C-alpha cells in the first residue's frame, strides 16, 4: 500500500482506521497508551451533517444519497503538531481520542509504537469482523436462476 507519489498515505491510513474503529476498543487501547502530553483544543468536538454522494453501480452520474451525522475535532500537541479527526456519529469522546492520536502519530518518536499498539490491533479487529461477516453471508448464499421465458 506504500505509494511513493503520496507521502500522506500512511496518515490517511491511520485516520481512516481511527475513524472506523470500534469506540470501546479504541478507548481501551488509548487508556493503555496514555501519555502525559497536554493538548490544546483548536476545535471542540462538534457534530454536523455531511452529504453522502454515490454513483449508481459505482460508475454512473453522482447523486446525493442522504446525510450522515459526523463529529469532527482538532487538537494541537505541545510540540505544535495538529491532529484532526472526522468520525461518523455523535461520539465526542471518540473524535477527541482520534484527533489526539493523529497528532501523536505524526511525531516520529512515537509513531512506530503507537502503530504497533493501537492502529494495528484496531485494523486487525476490523478485518476479523469483516471476515466473519463475509463468512456468515457466504454460508447462506443462494443462487437464483432465471429460466428462459421464451419471449424473444
Amino acid at each position, binding site marked *: 500500500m506504500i505509494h511513493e507519489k503520496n507521502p500522506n498515505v500512511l496518515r490517511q491510513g491511520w485516520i481512516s482506521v481511527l475513524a472506523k474503529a470500534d469506540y470501546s476498543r479504541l478507548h481501551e487501547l488509548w487508556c493503555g497508551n496514555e501519555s502525559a502530553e497536554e493538548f*490544546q*483544543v*483548536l*476545535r*471542540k468536538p462538534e457534530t454536523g451533517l455531511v452529504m453522502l454522494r454515490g454513483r449508481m453501480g459505482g460508475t454512473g452520474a453522482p447523486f446525493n444519497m442522504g446525510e450522515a451525522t459526523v463529529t469532527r475535532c*482538532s487538537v*494541537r500537541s505541545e510540540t*505544535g*503538531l*495538529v491532529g484532526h479527526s472526522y468520525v461518523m456519529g455523535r461520539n465526542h469522546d471518540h473524535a477527541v481520542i482520534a484527533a489526539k492520536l493523529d497528532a501523536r502519530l505524526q511525531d516520529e518518536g512515537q509513531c512506530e509504537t503507537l502503530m504497533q499498539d493501537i492502529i494495528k490491533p484496531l485494523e486487525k479487529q476490523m478485518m476479523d469482523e469483516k471476515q466473519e461477516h463475509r463468512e456468515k453471508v457466504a454460508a447462506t448464499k443462494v443462487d437464483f436462476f432465471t429460466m428462459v421465458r421464451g419471449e424473444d
Partner: protein
Amino acid sequence: MTTALASGFIDPPVESSHAFRTFMNAMAQPGTIQPLPVRTENPQGLNKGSTLVMLTLADHEAPIWLDDTLNITSVTDYLKFHCNAPITASESAAMFAVFSSCPDRQTLELFPVGTSEYPDASTTFVIQVDGFHEEGDIALSGPGIKTVNRFGVIGISQPFWDWVKHNNARFPLGHDVLLVSDDAIVALPRTVRVMEVA
C-alpha cells in the same frame, strides 16, 4: 508544518455573541472605545482585535482581502481553518479588507463602495492600530452621537481622516471601518462626520 495553528474560540456560541454585541455597540456609538469582551489566541500578524472581528464576522460567504504584511501562512491558515473564509486577492470581491497598519487613500479607493440598490455590498475595512485614548484630538459627530465624541488613536495618519470625510460625503454608499487594537475596538461607520482633527 512550520507554524502551529493558534486556537480560536473556546466556547464559540457564547464568545461570538459577546463579541458581536460589542461590535454592534461600537457601530451604534461611533468613536466610543469598546474594550474587547473576549481574548483569544491570535496568529502571528493579526492583533487580538482583528482576530476577534474575523472569528465573529467572517465566514465562507465573506471573502477576505489581506494586505501584503498579513498575507502570510500563519494568518491565511488561521482564517481558513477557523472561519472557513476564502482569501481573495481581488479588491472587488472582498467583503472584508484587513490592514496591518493605516492604509493610504489610493488603496482604500480600490474597494467597492456598494451600489444604490445594495449599499451593503461595500467592503468593510478592519484596520489594526496601536491603541486608543480617551479625550484625544479627533472629534466625531453624526447618528449615534449626542453632541460630539472625542477620542484619540495611535497609528492613524492625518490623510486618513480626509478620506473619512470623503467617505461620509458619498452616503448612502461608502465603507464601514473598524479600528482594532489588542485591547479595544472603535467603529467609524459611513455615517460618521469628522468635525476636527487637531
